């Protein structure tokens, strides 16, 4: 992508005013999207992004600059601007880049390309048609099939020179059901760190029918009753509760500056002893996996909480400097225009000791959240919120009528203690996580869990 000797000169220029670390992140990525609505392929577009981000540290001060001008003049100008902003001394140093090749643990067989656009469009259409034909009350189906082929190069003043390529594919199908007076929706959105071979395991028609079934369920459901109650949260995307309630509070982004409820709690009991949670970027072809992070560190499996005790944070290079702890392979960014920071990869609660049937039967009156939507958190206070995309009331230990319009709110420190039953059907769901380094793909996951008491928003 860029000549090694040019990179050495750019790094030297970046450090010329006294920076103690410099890094270049170059990216050329190609993304494409096929969109379906109203029974037709409505639009197809693709985009190439190409640019460089240059970062310098002086202690815990950082300067970051990005540019689409990847000519030598453009890069040297960008480096000079970073140097001017980070310090005012005059320093000469030597940098000799040494290539490091990390193993590719996420093999790809069928790379999406223009030649396969027709094939991909047929896959999307099959899923959307299946959703439309599921029930005559399905009035609209929207779908998209997106792919991204990301090529990055990282070089830094410690001599690292490495490259990586990752290919991601995702399909999203949303169905709208109507009874003539109101609409309700359902959706499904699986994705993987792989090419179009993704569809060998994920049958588009089944995905379409899942989205439509959820929309019909919600159309027939009454509004959820508001109040505090026990909640059973299903596996898969239900793991968003850990992602929001705890995961973000374990990122160095907030921990290192004292803006997290979890700061200073390493070794302390922060969750019910049934809770063991990990962040694992090494799972082959998982949506949130990586070969290397966006600082060039290899992907890791980090145990965050073990038997309820906080074992680790997720730490990037800047966080490492601030906290005096090693990096954990969690530095990520949307693209070259974002300064990287500590982020999650695939984060989930491991299987626990409880039978799933026991969890449902233990609830006299509560909510079964079969499918969760997204959420957000304030890491300082731990206050979080999630939407419930598909829910049912539990009465007398049995899953009963469907309810809609529910949300769950609480605080992370409290809910971690209130997860008092952990089931045995660990599964993950795919999401896009937004934070200060942009929007990145992450997996969330868990087995079925019971939260003994939580505020359910409804009507």
């Amino acid at each position, binding site marked *: 992508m860029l000549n090694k000797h040019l990179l050495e000169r750019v790094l030297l220029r970046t450090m010329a005013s006294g920076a103690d670390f410099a890094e270049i992140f170059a990216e050329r990525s190609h993304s494409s999207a096929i969109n379906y609505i109203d029974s037709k392929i409505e639009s197809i577009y693709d985009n190439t992004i190409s640019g460089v981000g240059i970062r310098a540290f002086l202690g815990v001060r950082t300067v970051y600059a990005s540019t689409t001008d990847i000519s030598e003049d453009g890069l040297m100008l960008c480096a000079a601007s970073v140097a001017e902003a980070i310090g005012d001394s005059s320093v000469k140093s030597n940098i000799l880049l040494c290539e490091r090749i990390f193993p590719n643990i996420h093999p790809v067989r069928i790379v999406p390309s223009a030649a396969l656009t027709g094939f991909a469009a047929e896959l999307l259409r099959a899923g959307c048609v299946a959703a439309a034909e599921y029930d005559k009350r399905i009035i609209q189906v929207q779908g998209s099939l997106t792919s991204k082929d990301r090529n990055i190069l990282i070089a830094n003043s410690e001599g690292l020179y490495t490259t990586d390529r990752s290919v991601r594919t995702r399909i999203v199908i949303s169905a709208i059901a109507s009874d003539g007076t109101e609409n309700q929706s359902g959706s499904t959105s699986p994705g993987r760190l792989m090419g179009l071979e993704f569809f060998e395991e994920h049958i588009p028609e089944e995905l379409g029918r899942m989205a439509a079934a959820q929309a019909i369920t919600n159309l027939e459901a009454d509004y959820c009753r508001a109040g505090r109650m026990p909640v059973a949260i299903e596996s898969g995307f239900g793991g968003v509760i850990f992602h929001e309630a705890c995961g973000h509070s374990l990122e160095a982004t907030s921990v290192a500056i004292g803006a997290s409820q979890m700061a200073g709690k390493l070794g302390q009991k922060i969750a019910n002893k049934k809770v063991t949670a990990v962040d694992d970027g090494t799972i082959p072809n998982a949506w949130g996996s990586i070969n290397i992070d966006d600082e060039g560190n290899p992907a890791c499996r980090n145990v965050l909480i073990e038997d309820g005790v906080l074992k680790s944070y997720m730490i990037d290079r800047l966080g490492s400097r601030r906290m005096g702890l090693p990096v954990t392979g969690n530095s990520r960014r949307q693209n070259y225009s974002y300064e990287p920071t500590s982020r999650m990869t695939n984060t989930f609660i491991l299987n626990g000791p409880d039978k799933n049937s026991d969890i449902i039967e233990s609830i006299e009156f509560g909510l079964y959240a079969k499918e969760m939507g997204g959420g957000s958190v304030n890491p300082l206070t731990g206050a979080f919120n999630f939407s419930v995309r598909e829910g049912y009331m539990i009465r007398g230990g049995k899953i009963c009528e469907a309810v809609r319009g529910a949300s769950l709110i609480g605080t992370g420190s409290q809910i971690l203690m209130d997860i008092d039953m952990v089931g045995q059907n660990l599964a993950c769901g795919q999401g896009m996580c937004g934070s200060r380094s942009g929007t990145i793909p992450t997996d969330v996951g868990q087995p079925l869990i019971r939260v003994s008491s939580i505020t359910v928003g409804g*009507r």
Partner: protein
Amino acid sequence: MIDFEKLKDALVKAATAAGIEQYEIYFKTARDAMAEALGDEISGFSFGVSGGICFRCIFGGRMGYASTELMTTDEMRELVLRAVENAKHIESDDEVFIYPGSSEYGKKTAQPVEFPDAALLKNNALALQQSTYAKSKSVTDGTQSRVFAYETETRIFNSKGLSLANTAGMTGGFVRAVVKVDGESADDYDYALGCGLDRLLPLSERAVAGARAKIGAVEIESGKYDVIIDGRQMLNLLAAFSTVFSGKSARLGLSLLAGKEGSEVAAPCITICDDPFDPNCPMQTTFDAEGVAVYTKNVVEKGVLKTLLYDLSNAKKAGTRSTGNASKGSYADAVDISPLCLSIKPGACSLEELFQIALGGLYVTEIKGLHAGANYATGDFSVECAGFLVEDGQRGRPVKSFTIAGNFYGLLKSITHVGSKVEYGIPSGYTVFASPAVLARNISTAGK
């Protein structure tokens, strides 16, 4: 420097060689800078220069798109081929247009913003941070101040002879104050457009006071409450549901406003206006993403839906004219529909008068989770909130961890009073939302 003329010439040449007669080149560049203060020093400074080009063309009656940031003449040839290839697989029979231009374009009211140098951004971020710490001894770690600048240039050139250019920019500041009182932490933030200290320093007082006011917050019983929604929260709700005003959403069954023009869709006290030349909005343009002249229109007037928002294609389908609301989130996106400056027009009530009218209930000053808890296709929302009790016609004790739930269409009808002070959000592209506080009746609320 990106040489637009050179790239344009390469694209025109490639399009001609490919036999493309109708095409459009959409070109966008931007630069941004931000200084951030943490603790008692500048912790970070970032700046960026970006630019992208989108080529779209009509091939076989379909509109194909392709875009890139790689600004080489070879890439321009590739771009044309990719756009044609993409068009081949499109099935939509919507009529598509390359627009020759409007007869007249409006005049912007926003003053040009000078892009500040790095020293000014850093100095003012540090001054804001120091000012925030000086407000109270309870201000603690995690407190952050940011001052930013952004400017962008958009150009549209097409085969019908249209050639338009627009530049816009803004500066602004943000502070997040973290306070700790008797072991309890709370935070609040404030923002303002402009990067002068006269605009920035008042943020410290409001953020610190806001954070301190949250200490000792209580939980409330679940039930139905009259709710005053603060202007900054109401504008976020309006933004979350703005898609319901899109003519495309209505056509596709994704908005319940389809066919409701002339009907009552909100309380009589509600007027919602899309005014691209609102002087409080710095990111102004005279043309939309298809080159159509933008203009001011009431979307809802005294509760009655006057018009939906349209681009060229959806207007044609609806038998009407474009409202100048074609939009592109980034240069790479396909044309969609968005408002420019969509605001709920102010009423007559001060905030204190709203408290007195409500007598009791809740004052919502924070809404979170709208990205997940608001469904524009159904209108339903169920979102996390924080705020204050309204007690005896005044702002009372702070309240935490509750939700409000309802339906946006219903909410618009349940508003009985509108505040007099309009709050503006931070623009995203050329779109910004604004609203005064509103008093809505009988809202479902979940607490303890």
